[in-house]
């Protein structure tokens, strides 16, 4: 279904423009990091890509074969766990994806094993720690075998240990051939996990660069200011 092609995508709420005429093509291959300060529109852009929001104008098209929504998944900054066991949360996603009952059970066990949650599979998901819940959210998305995985600040609320675990799981998912698209405002994480940067500022796509050149010689002054930790006020 990739590439995902955005053409002049604008998103406005009550006359306030959040995403401003973004055109970009997201293809298979490189891990794409959407970078920008708070309020730059990272999360909104991701929700538009995932199909949770409709653009006010412009178009978002999956150019490849297959239907858009079927082979993509998203992990949110605050994962929402259903009031049931950890494994039942994974099974729920698989059921909605139309996987057979037998297969659901097997896949759920496998994926919980892979993210290191096999020992808490039977525990109610909502009493797990924040880090465990985020790993469970990754497992739930991973179990679907997505072609594209959107990650919205997946480690923003986690301690360093859990952050390391989550980054390692993202690496495993990537190794299985899933395209990673992730937002972050953590430069270190962008460097560790990214191949290319889409830099957003005030709703506009200011720059798209490979990771090394973005950090060594950013093409835009906004990105330069962001990297140097300055607020891009002027």
């Amino acid at each position, binding site marked *: 279904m990739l590439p995902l092609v955005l053409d002049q995508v604008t998103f406005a709420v009550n006359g306030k423009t959040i995403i401003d005429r973004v055109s970009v093509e997201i293809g298979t291959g490189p891990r794409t990091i959407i970078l920008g300060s708070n309020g730059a529109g990272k999360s909104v852009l991701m929700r538009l890509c995932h199909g949770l929001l409709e653009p006010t104008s412009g178009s978002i098209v999956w150019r490849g074969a297959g239907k858009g929504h079927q082979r993509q998944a998203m992990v949110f900054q605050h994962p929402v766990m259903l009031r*049931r066991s950890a494994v039942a949360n994974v099974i729920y*996603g698989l059921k*909605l994806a139309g996987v057979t009952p037998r297969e659901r059970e097997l896949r759920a066990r496998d994926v919980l094993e892979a993210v290191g949650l096999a020992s808490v599979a039977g525990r109610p998901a909502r009493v797990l720690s924040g880090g465990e819940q985020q790993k469970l959210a990754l497992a739930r998305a991973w179990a679907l075998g997505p072609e594209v995985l959107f990650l919205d600040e997946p480690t923003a609320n986690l301690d360093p240990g859990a952050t390391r675990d989550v980054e390692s799981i993202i690496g495993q998912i990537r190794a299985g051939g899933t395209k990673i698209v992730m937002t972050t405002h953590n430069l270190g994480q962008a460097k560790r996990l990214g191949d290319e940067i889409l830099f957003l500022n005030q709703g506009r796509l200011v720059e798209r660069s490979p990771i090394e050149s973005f950090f060594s010689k950013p093409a835009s002054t906004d990105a330069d200011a962001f990297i140097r930790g300055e607020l891009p006020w002027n």
Partner: protein
Amino acid sequence: MNEISLAFGEAGRLIVGLDATLTGIVSLSIRVSLTAVVIASMLGLPLGAAIAVGRFPGRQALIVVLNALMGLPPVVVGLFVYLMLSRAGPLGQFGILFTPAAMVVAQTILILPIVAALSRQVIEDAWQEYREQLRSLGAGPLTSAVTLLWDTRFSLVTIVLAGFGRAAAEVGAVIIVGGNIDGVTRVMTTAIALETSKGDLPLALGLGVILLSLVLALNAAAYWVKEAAQRRYG
């Protein structure tokens, strides 16, 4: 003063001795209110979920009306059901006026708005939290409504118990449509009203004590269910 303490003593003897009149009245009360709450829940919970998740014209007006109906005066409901079920009324052919069935109808009408309006509120609050996650997993409106009903089940139990309490404690509607016929449609509240006016304080007091205990037990149960669920499922 002496008379009141004598009445209390006699009431205690009636309760402890499982007096036939008293137990008959109590069991009819519970049967009628339980039937009403079951019907009201089967209609009200799905209705609440549908309004919470659905987006349709007139939705806000419906919510306002539903909230207003929570304050329905029981005597007005009694009058309305009386008119419907009386010989000349549109439903007169069923001949259920002055039977327990008529009382079930009246109590159902009385508590249906309570169950629907309160569950709508609870489910809509949960929907705010779950919406993006469920949509991301591919859940449509129906699946979302069912999922939310299940995930808010412990709060909904509290609502259903509140509905039962309201039904069991109500007098105005059942006295009009039931007629307070001895051994047929006499329930706790109508019996208390009658016996008090007759001066038979022991029976009135005994029933009053049972009614109060029932309401107290229901509230304790509601509180306990919620607490236990919170601890267990988060």
